[in-house]
């Protein structure tokens, strides 16, 4: 009874008795969120164990994951008890830690599968990019909270953009394409809720759309030589996209000239309508430009995955294989599944990356729609709690943190599950709390800790 949140709420408001800090903390604790996350972790640990059964040293996987979970739980309680407001006072330091972690991993990290993204400490390895996401959320939330009055101005948006670009740039150097994606939705969600001009955000979205579609088009064209041969126009476009530095520089000069023209005319208070067309033109170039950066840094297999997403049957034994097998794995579980630890698709190795990116398929295969549907609902509850906490937070900073964290989880869950079901490209994103991966588990639990901290302090005036 004493642990009932409703009861404690009424109890605390009545102010009958001065509560100890611990008791007060427990009374204001968001039990729904906490239990929801614990349940997800339990499912995750079970599934990691099941998926690792086919390995000879399967104990190592579950052992590491349990250790990460334990560490994450410690972090969760530390961050839950820690007043989140202290981050607001040390934004620069948080940003510094975040960026220097990413920088350090580039200098001191371990290379694995061509990506330099890990610190190795004994038997454990740590991926700073996972932690940086959370830190970036804190920084963005803090900055937007501080500058919320000026957010209506397009120029103001430049700083959060630079913060995000700094992170993305460093992660792209590893290179880890998948990990950079989450920054965009986080940034958009925080800016949007913080009060940025919707029109400006639309422009940013348009930019992202251009960058994304140019990237996809380039990849698609690079995989269809026959099509290029038949259509000289597309051949021309393709060679334009393919060109390296020279083309980038030309684009950059164009963009700079137009940007200058735009700025100059604005300063001179000219009101000329074609300037809008020019700025659109500029916009396209910037989008194109950034897509070129991506195009040059993503790996070949990642491009192929992108295309395989649009048409998995193009290459059923190659890039499309993962998607098809993942769907088969998931679907073959039917309503009640094949039984815990009785996966065949997984056990026999038809499903790749089953303990990490494709863990949701194993869940669906072994426990069926009943369990996989429940997990989706658990994620929805998690996100609903995050946004509820954002709505109830005592200050805008706390709200924005909750929005950022909620968006982060939402993005990961949606993209990963969509990927597993063949609705999104195979981007290599883990499923929070379920996928094998210590850093992700640790930082996710830490993020939940921050959420709980925001939640617990909602009534502290």
């Amino acid at each position, binding site marked *: 009874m004493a642990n009932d949140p409703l009861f404690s709420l009424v109890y605390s408001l009545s102010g009958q008795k001065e509560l100890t800090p611990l008791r007060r903390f427990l009374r204001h604790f968001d039990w729904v969120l906490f239990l929801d996350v614990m349940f997800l972790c339990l499912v995750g640990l079970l599934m990691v164990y099941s998926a690792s059964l086919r390995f000879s040293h399967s104990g190592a996987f579950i052992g590491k994951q349990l250790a990460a979970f334990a560490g994450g739980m410690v972090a969760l309680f530390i961050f839950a008890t820690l007043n989140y407001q202290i981050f607001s006072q040390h934004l620069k330091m948080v940003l510094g830690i975040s960026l220097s972690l990413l920088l350090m991993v580039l200098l001191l990290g371990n290379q694995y599968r061509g990506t330099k993204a890990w610190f190795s400490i004994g038997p454990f390895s740590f991926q700073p990019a996972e932690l940086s996401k959370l830190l970036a959320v804190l920084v963005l939330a803090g900055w937007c909270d501080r500058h919320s009055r000026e957010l209506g101005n397009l120029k103001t948006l430049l700083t959060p953009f630079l913060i995000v670009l700094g992170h993305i740039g460093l992660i792209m150097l590893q290179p880890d394409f998948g990990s950079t994606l989450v920054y965009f939705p986080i940034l958009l969600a925080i800016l*949007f809720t913080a009060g940025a001009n919707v029109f400006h955000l639309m422009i940013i979205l348009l930019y992202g759309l251009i960058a994304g579609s140019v990237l996809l088009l380039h990849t698609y064209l690079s995989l269809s030589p026959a099509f290029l041969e038949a259509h000289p126009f597309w051949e021309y476009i393709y060679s334009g996209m393919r060109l390296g530095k020279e083309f980038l520089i030309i684009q950059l000069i164009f963009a700079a000239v137009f940007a200058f023209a735009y700025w100059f005319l604005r300063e001179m208070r000219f009101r000329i309508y074609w300037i809008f067309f020019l700025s659109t033109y500029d916009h396209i170039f910037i989008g194109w430009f950034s897509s070129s950066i991506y195009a040059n840094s993503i790996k070949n297999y990642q491009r192929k995955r992108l295309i395989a997403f649009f048409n998995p049957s193009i290459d059923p034994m190659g890039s499309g294989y993962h998607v098809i*097998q993942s769907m088969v794995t*998931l*679907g*073959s579980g039917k309503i009640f599944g094949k039984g815990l630890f009785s996966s*065949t698709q997984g056990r026999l190795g038809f499903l790749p990356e089953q303990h990490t990116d494709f863990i949701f398929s194993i869940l669906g295969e072994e426990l069926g729609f009943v369990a*996989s549907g429940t997990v989706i609902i658990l994620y929805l509850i998690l996100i609903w709690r995050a946004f509820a906490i954002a709505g109830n937070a005592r200050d805008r900073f706390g709200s924005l943190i909750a929005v950022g964290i909620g968006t982060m989880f*939402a993005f990961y869950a*949606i993209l990963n599950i969509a990927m597993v079901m063949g609705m999104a490209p195979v981007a290599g994103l883990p499923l929070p709390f379920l996928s094998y991966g210590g850093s992700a588990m640790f930082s996710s639990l830490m993020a939940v800790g921050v959420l709980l901290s925001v939640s617990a302090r909602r009534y502290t005036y």
Partner: protein
Amino acid sequence: MVSSTEFEKRLSFVLIVISFFFGFLFIRLFYLQVVQGANMRTIAEANRTSLLFERAPRGLILDRSGQVLASNRQTFLILFTPLELNKDILAKVIRRLANILNVKEEDLERKLAPAIKHSSMVRLLDRASRATAFALEEQKPNLPGVSVVTEMQRSYPNGALAAHLLGYLSQVNAGELQELRQEGYQADWLIGKMGLEKIYDRILRGEYGGMRIEVDASGRSVKILDRKKAVSGYQIKTTLDLKIQKAAEDALAETKKPGAVVAMDPKTGEVLAFVSAPSFDPNVFLYTRGELADQEGPGSLVTREDLPLFNRATQGMFPPGSIFKIIVAAAAIESKKVSPADTYFCPGYFALGGPGGKKISCWKKTGHGTVNFSEAILNSCNVYFCHVGLKLGPDLIERLSKKFGLGAPTGLGLAGEKSGYIPGRGMFKKGNRHWYDGDTANMSIGQGTVLFTPIQAALMISVMASHGKIYQPQIIKEIRTPEGELYEEFNPKLVGEVDLADSTWSFLDQALARVVGEGTAQGAKIPGITVGAKTGTAQNPQGKDHAWFVAYAPVEDPKIAVAVFVEHGIKGGVAGAPIAKRIIEAALLNQVESPASSKKIFVSEGEPIGD
């Protein structure tokens, strides 16, 4: 800074967008797991299982007394399992294997590539020769992954005997596979391509056994899920009599000419012998090259000019010549238009439309002189029959021919049976030509457009022998399950009756017996047995005439009816009679094997049996 309400609005907007995505995920999940679940389960099952089949021993094919016509022999099957060998060892294994199997290394490599890629077991070689199998066993320590197992495989102990009836087996081709896939046939199965093997493929085949093996993503076998024992095919007992069949084969082979022999039991329609020469050895499709003594390989069977795969007994159509006179005579006597005592003068030719007309010559250039009906039959006088034919008109002959079942397939059941042809006035209905007396004359001596297949000739003489009872020619006596239970029994099937007066039948019996006794068929004379027969010569504009010979015996109580056809045999009496004689002897003189052969072994000297 946005107002509180604006903030709340934006917050819920983001949440709604996210929830919207989750809704999509949920629907998609439902679709994949619930709607498509069964399909996906099927795919997943197919993913994890692989089949390694084991052929079932094919059902035996026996003669009427249970002697084996088609059986099974033990053959060697070579399996290859690419264990986790490194490249060097694998290359060595392939080199050694290529050496022993006597194939090119590259070919072998190509054949093994998919197996190596998926680490799955493959049937490397079916029906390996004994020598190959032994060589492989000897080299076993040096050939990791290669295993030799035995498997029962069709074989034909009598070689080419009755090959056209039995048929042969060969690998299912792409076109057939498309049709048969639903029935579970697979790409490297052997199926019957001719004769009984083809008609009864489904029941002869038995049930293939095999193993369902669980494989992992790289195709490696993980465990055996279940194992099915191969169930042997059903046993077919034919109506053939091996002794008669052998006699027919040997006798026809001695002429060294293409031809056909069909012998039937006139009281049941059962086919006792069925020969088409030249024949082929169906084993060549099943043995490895070089394993059989006279090995030409199946390829040459198709290209040879004498068409060994062509079933002359059911597919060859030839003018019946004088054997058709049996029908004409029957029609004449029955209709009473000609009486047995009527005589005509044979000057050696028949002048159409009176003296000076177009001449149809008799086979005896000097003429037979004045002959009565019976004499005309025994001498096979064309002139007499031209007179008879003109008196009868073509319609009666046509009608009676069709009553005998001529001009239509006999329904023996073998694929591609031809129907022969019986002409008549009807054939010119559409054209601008009329039926002339010349046509009638030609028809009455069995030339021109009248066409018989050898099986039809056999049916005709069989109906003659049984005095009008038309039994469906049959090759199968019974079909039994591998356990010996009766599965299906084929009883004699009376499909029609030619209703003629007894006097007509006895006239014909006597006349045909005289043909053997004192006429053109004296070569078929057997002491103690009355044989009725008729010779025939089919005019062949392309070369030497074909010989026909139809006979039945004993005339009083016929037990066998035979039709012999010898391509380019010229005269039925010369080419056909001795063959028919040997067949009838084989059928009726029970104790006697054809002279000499086995006597020495089983019977003490000085105690001859029979003649």
